[in-house]
């Protein structure tokens, strides 16, 4: 009903995982990364970054976000996720588009109009 079986072949992986919680744990990651991409875009636009520098700034912000998410998971991804990739890499490419949108938006408002 609420929990289902999820069997795995690896020996050190728990055989039963609460998949409801696993999926609902994806949401905070997604919200955090989207919000931080938007904030990072606005800051990059105000600061006046153009070209490559802006993308470097985005990846710096995402690195900080990954570190923060790992800290939020108390540095043990196994109790909250099925792999470290979810904490560290998920959502970075999706956030990139929001970042570029708000980056151009803020840059236009501050520097052009």
């Amino acid at each position, binding site marked *: 009903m*609420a929990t289902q079986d999820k069997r795995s072949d690896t020996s050190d992986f728990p055989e039963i*995982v609460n998949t409801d*919680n696993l999926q609902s744990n994806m949401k905070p990651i997604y919200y955090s990364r989207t919000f931080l991409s938007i904030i990072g875009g606005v800051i990059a636009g105000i600061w006046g970054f153009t070209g490559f520098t802006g993308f470097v700034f985005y990846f710096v912000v995402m690195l900080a976000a990954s570190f923060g998410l790992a800290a939020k998971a108390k540095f043990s991804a196994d109790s909250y996720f099925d792999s470290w990739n979810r904490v560290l890499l998920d959502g970075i490419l999706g956030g990139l588009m929001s970042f570029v949108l708000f980056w151009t938006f803020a840059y236009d408002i501050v520097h052009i109009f």
Partner: protein
Amino acid sequence: MGLGFVVGIIGGFLIAHAAFSTIQYRGELKIMEEQFTGPPFNAVIELLVGLGLCLWAGLAVPTKFLSILPHSDENRVVSLPANLDFMVFNHRGKVLPSNPDLKLKI
């Protein structure tokens, strides 16, 4: 959660203020016909502090992670939120193989 919101809003205000002061600074540069090399120093500080506050708020405000391990204390009882008359407990019997083709012999 309330504190996270407040911190996020403060961060947002700082960033907006930095945007306004950068716009003003650019206006002054246009009058003096100089090149724009970067926002003024206090705007940069505001941007960095705002970024830090929003980073903190962006990580703290979304709900905390729920444990997925079956043997953690918070996963003992799985119950429908509306009706507590029916309670399901997580137990190791789930790991036992079950044969769905077994028929009840009446």
